[in-house]
């Protein structure tokens, strides 16, 4: 019996070992989403959760793209409409709309996105720098990922969470 158990454990650890090999450093895991026509992505570890839209409270004296605040299990979290932030006209929420809750250190915020695509694994060498036309430290773009026929804009989480008003 214990032999069998050992075998199983060995097998599991082997598998895990194999997986960790797979996830070696040169692969980046992202979650992709769509805003307007384009696909964007953020690192999977920065995402606290993805939830369906629900009611929020409007907040005065803030830019248009800050919709307000909402209650996430007892915490009050700001809600930001990425469509508006990216200069697109606002759109009413539908079945595919999601709130993306990003977290970095103590900063947490919810972002409204049009549609979720999928989890993306992408090799580091397939990620290029942001185009030269968008330069400077102000850019929100971390890099551009190429995956098969898609081009995915990878966003900087700290820039998304940084207050810029």
């Amino acid at each position, binding site marked *: 019996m214990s032999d069998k158990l050992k075998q199983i454990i060995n097998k599991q650890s082997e598998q895990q070992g194999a997986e960790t090999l797979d996830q070696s450093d040169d692969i980046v895991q992202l979650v992709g989403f769509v805003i307007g026509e384009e696909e964007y992505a953020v690192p999977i570890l920065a995402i606290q959760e993805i939830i369906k839209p629900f009611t929020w*409270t409007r*907040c*005065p004296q803030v830019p248009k793209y800050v919709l307000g*605040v909402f209650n996430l299990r007892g*915490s*009050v979290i700001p809600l930001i409409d990425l469509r508006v932030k990216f200069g697109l006209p606002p759109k*009413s929420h539908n079945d595919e709309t999601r709130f993306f809750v990003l977290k970095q250190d*103590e900063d947490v*915020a919810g972002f409204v996105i049009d549609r979720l695509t999928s989890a993306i694994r992408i090799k580091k060498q397939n990620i290029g720098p942001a185009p030269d036309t968008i330069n400077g430290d102000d850019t929100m773009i971390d890099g551009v990922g190429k995956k098969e026929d898609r081009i995915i804009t990878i966003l900087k989480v700290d820039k998304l969470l940084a207050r810029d008003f």
Partner: protein
Amino acid sequence: MDEFQEILQDFLVESFELVEKLDEDLVELENTPEDLELLNGIFRVAHTVKGASSFLNFDVLTHLTHHMEDVLNKARHGDLIITPDIMDVILESIDLMKTLLNTIRDTSADAGIDVSACVARLDKVSNGLEEGESLTSNAPEATVETSAIEDVPAEEEPDYDNMDPDELEAEIERLLNQRQEEDKAKREAKIAAGESVPKAPPAPSEEAESKREPTPAPVSPTPPPATISEAKKESDVKAAAPVNRAQTSVEQTIRVDVKRLDHLMNLIGELVLAKNRLIKINDDVEERYEGEEFLEELNQVVSIVSLVTTDLQIAVMKTRMLPIGKVFNKFPRMIRDLTRELNKKIELEISGEDTELDKSIVEEIGDPLVHIIRNSCDHGIEVPSVRMAAGKSETGTIALRAYNEGNQIVIQIDDDGKGLDANMLKNKALEKGLISEKEADNMSDKEAFSLIMKAGFSTAAAVTNVSGRGVGMDVVKTNIEKVNGIIDIESEMGKGSSMRLKIPLTLAIIQALLVGVQEEHYAIPLASVLETVRISKDEIYTVEGRSVMRLREDVLSLVHIGDIFEVERILDVSEHAYVVVLGLGTSKLGLIVDTLVGQEEIVIKSLGEYLKGIDGIAGATIRGDGGVTLICDVVALMDMAKGVKSTIMDNDAGKESSNEKTKASDYTVMIVDDSKTDRMIMKKALEPIGVTLVEASDGQEALNILKSGEHSFDALLIDIEMPRMDGYSLASEIKKYNRYKNLPLIAVTSRTGKSDRMRGVESGMVEYITKPYSADYLSSVVQRNVNFKSEFL
């Protein structure tokens, strides 16, 4: 000795905190040298440390911080630009300050560190003598010398030249006392370390008269410094520690990490939210199942839970409570020193030192109280001769009292000094450009008194060690407002003045008044609400573009909460409004709201890093229904009200969305009916004319479609009998919105009674079609109501 130790501990904790913050601020300042706010903050830290250390007789520290303060003061007034070179000197002095504080922590004295080099550089900076010599050159390491005998007089000497004989004598005596205290401490430490020490020598009296040797060497019973090895010193410190510990163990208390208490408080906060929610659900259930038996039981459980929660909250709050005596304790000594320094006779009366306050608040009010009392001593109480001339007793009295008043603690500081001169204050403020001529004319005495708390206002002509840089009262106001407190000043010329600080018991959970504006709710801390009044539109007058109303004898300026928070006017405003009268110290403001929702206990949550510092919003709370409600910052609200243009009266009569119709399908009609067959019949009747049709199966759905704004409707066909929301309710809901004022609502129903028709009209229906109807009739009614252009047919 015990008392001194206690004060010393507080001083050290506070100073280390301040200095830590200082480092961060200074570095930031180097990046943004013109940030006045930051500079003010840094300046206050130096000021506070200086003040506290001077009362504890840490002369070296006082000396150093005084010069730091000079430099920072210049920078604050724009006389000095902070260059990296100057910053180096400031940072060096801060490092020195830290070393001094460490020495004080270890030895209870600040002797033995040479600050003169640094002070000289600070002076150079403040006097603007920037010769070729670099400021940063050869900054000597702060050397800890075991003997203070040489250093102390060396630094103090320059000051003696400016002293009159009386002051000098006081100074000498103080230095002697300090010396004796140090010696005593050392002896005690040694006794504890098991060393035999010679008996204390008699207090020197002859030597004290000599001018050049204020700290006479013969007093020192300690062996020459050279014989004290470093190891011995360490053992001294170690030996001294157990003595302190023995003293504290007498108290019957358990020391608990504040973090644990904070966590407990947070949990209670969650519980209070859950309780609010439970109460709300209970109300709903009560409404729906009126008269059912189980309601009674539910009611009992809910009330027990709410009772226990409240008790629990109070109990946890109490664990965080500290007697205010902890703060009051340091004042008798302070007054004693001040009386000597200022040559005044002042008596301090303390009462209510057992009054308890939340720990975090106790920490916040220490500084403000120091400043207020120093101000009273310096500016309030007159010198004995003046007092005699005015027919008062030679000794002035400052009374420090603390007591409970409802949900608040009041700390009252009374003095029987000369009082505040309202006119003088006004003139001074005018001179400094803090107020305009017009403002000064309209200012009541009380408002004039509160001028002393404006930043940059100081009534003292000369800069003394005690006060008069115009920061003190500014700090008071900032700190008190930080804990949601308010300051009330009363004064009578020649009789004295009285300052009352009203402070809430706790910070985390407050009573609030919930108000509604349009579809939004806001919470206003109840402590700032004086009263609420219901008024009608014609009670509001406009004076110079501002709305005002008459409230009994006074004229109250008004502002609409919607104007402050940029609320979109979608609902029609009713004839009546409510005015919440906000009071903050002497100023009052009427806040117009649409509805009063009620009073509720709310838990304050921060808005987080991203949204912090929004004007007018102090935080948020989570309501019983799980929604978030924003909490108004009354202080900011009052400021904002000054700049807000009133729009209460102009009801921009719903911008007509009369888009030009170019084809039949530009017309959109919604069919609201719960029966699919009925909807089909209506559709069949209207399809031939080619209008766009949208369907909804009940009133609620119809309202949601309407609100979503995806379509702009030209007419609604509404059935009366529907689940969830019937036709009448739907019609009256729709009519609340400004922009649907003129939207034709057509009832299509089998109800034919006269009273039904009447209800239809009352709720805002324009047409009433009874079932059954002919397709042509329906079509013609719709065409008439949407102004259908015949050419599209």
